């Protein structure tokens, strides 16, 4: 297959995924809750008022029309009216997204070099003590819930050592370095969750490349170990790691719900949590579908970058 066809096929699959996802979110937000107007007005409101509000919200129309109305507006950037704020949802989601992007970017900037270094270091010392230590740290960091690692980190760095602020909310008007300083502690649980998986990928990739024929050839033809490592081993070893990094965006988003709640940070995770707590369904649907769209796009970008970085796919030699 040529690269153009791969990308077209991949993009078409992403569209189907997004469509199913939107149907699931619609079902969760508009079908399962039952009588939305009743939920807003409370059990004591009279039937007439409930029917009125149903009509006002458009809930008395056929489901397919409701779905089409919702999804076509969503695609145009109109995510509906929040029940709690009685204002359009989209600006809230956009603002929250901005905050989350800051936190998520910091976590990525920290975790990618750390885990690649850890994984490669592990592979170069495979079977020795340092390899086992990195493996155990990585595994436990990945499997522990973010709120557990988050709280332990707050206790150590915020309360005991008092070197990092325990709230993510920087003073108004703070410059970027101050913002990063405030985001350091919230980003650490995310870094820990991602570290184990990414380091394991980097380790496996490096081990595979170290055992490959081209590495043996490079060593035998007398290249310096450093040149073998940089030019032959790492270029091949890190390709899968780069792909996996993008797919980890989804796990990052799941972690954001917990971390942003724990640190009272106004990002998209915090928004989804607050909307769920207040049963603000339009806000909840907007937040959840936005996360799904971002994740699907990240997967698409991962596949494209994988294809572009790998000459075997780029020149159509392999599937």
């Amino acid at each position, binding site marked *: 297959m040529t690269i153009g066809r791969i990308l077209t096929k991949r993009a078409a*699959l992403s569209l*189907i*995924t*997004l469509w*199913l*996802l939107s149907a*699931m*979110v619609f079902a*969760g*937000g508009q*079908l*399962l*809750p039952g009588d939305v107007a009743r939920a807003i007005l409370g059990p004591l409101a009279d039937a007439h008022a409930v029917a009125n509000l149903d009509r006002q919200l458009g809930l008395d129309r056929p489901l397919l029309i409701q779905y089409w109305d919702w999804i076509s507006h969503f695609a145009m950037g109109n995510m509906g009216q929040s029940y709690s704020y009685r204002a359009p949802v989209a600006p809230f989601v956009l603002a929250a997204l901005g905050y989350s992007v800051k936190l998520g970017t910091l976590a990525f900037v920290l975790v990618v070099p750390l885990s690649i270094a850890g994984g490669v270091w592990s592979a170069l010392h495979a079977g020795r003590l340092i390899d086992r230590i990195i493996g155990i740290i990585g*595994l*436990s960091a990945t*499997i*522990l*819930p*973010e*709120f*557990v690692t988050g*709280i*332990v980190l*707050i*206790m150590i760095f915020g*309360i005991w050592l008092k070197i990092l602020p*325990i709230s993510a909310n920087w003073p108004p008007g703070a410059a970027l370095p101050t913002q990063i300083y405030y985001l350091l502690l919230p980003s650490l649980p995310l870094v820990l969750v991602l570290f184990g998986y990414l380091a394991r990928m980097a380790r496996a990739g490096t081990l595979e490349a170290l055992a490959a024929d081209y590495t043996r050839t490079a060593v035998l033809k007398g290249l310096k170990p450093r040149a073998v490592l940089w030019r032959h081993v790492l270029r091949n070893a890190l390709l899968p790691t780069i792909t996996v990094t993008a797919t980890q965006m*989804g*796990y990052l*988003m*799941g*972690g954001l*719900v*917990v971390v942003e*709640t*724990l640190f009272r940070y106004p990002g998209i995770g915090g928004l*989804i*949590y607050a909307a*769920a*707590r207040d*049963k603000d*369904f339009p806000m*909840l649907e907007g937040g*959840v579908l936005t*996360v*799904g769209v971002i*994740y*699907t796009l990240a*997967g698409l970008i991962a596949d494209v970058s994988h294809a572009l970085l790998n000459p075997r796919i780029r020149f159509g030699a392999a599937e």
Partner: protein
Amino acid sequence: MKVRWRVLTRSGTFMTGVLIVAFWAGCAVCGRLIVPFDPFADDILNTLGAPSGVHWFGTDQLGRDVFSRVIVGARDILLVAPLATALGIALGVLIGLVTGYFRGIIDDLIGRVIDALLALPLVIIALLALTAIGTSAATVVVVIGIIFAPLVARTVRAAVLSERDLDYVAAAKLRNEHTVYILFAEILPNVIPPIVVEAGVRLGYAIFTVATLSFIGFGIQPPSPDWGLAVSESYGLINGGIWWPVLFNALAIASLVIGVNLAADGIQAAVDA
């Protein structure tokens, strides 16, 4: 099978994990009988007491003994998470057997649904579904079970695909066996190992998810001494130096999660061996 069992019992990873899980399972079953204090009894005159000889882990904001609550707190999560896993495995095995055996359009459809499900973190889908149908221990079991089903189905389907064209299946077909018999009596026994591995991994995720949901208030509800709930009720206090209710509950969650994952890793290694 016997060889696998021997590999399993001699694996340090597996046995460590099983011991940790067995300890908490014991606490879940008979914790109420052995704890020094009633985990639900308030003591207004003795709130937020630091750990001491009487209250080993201190007391919480209502004066309840933290040690007793941590021991009994294993109960709900060790009920909800395994039930959710069992539901997910049961549904997933059924879907996986059928889609792997018949393939066709349902097979493609399930593949797409799995992609869509994987496009959202577990906690976020669970949050959406629980907000829609209401939070209780039963709905948490149902929601996590249903989310797990397609993920389990994918594993089972892959295993079934490599079995369906083997001779023993063809022989059963020639004997004119009923399809249900072929699926459950011929193919199922041969795909048990990957299902057991999947169950271990899923249980780890289920505990992770239930603890997280309880922490954000969408899982196990008060007045349960559940660990995630206890952490969420008292983490506001750590700023004032009250660290004990939070720390001991967090450590309890950590040990259970690590125990389950060690056991699951051991099973994986034994099946691969």
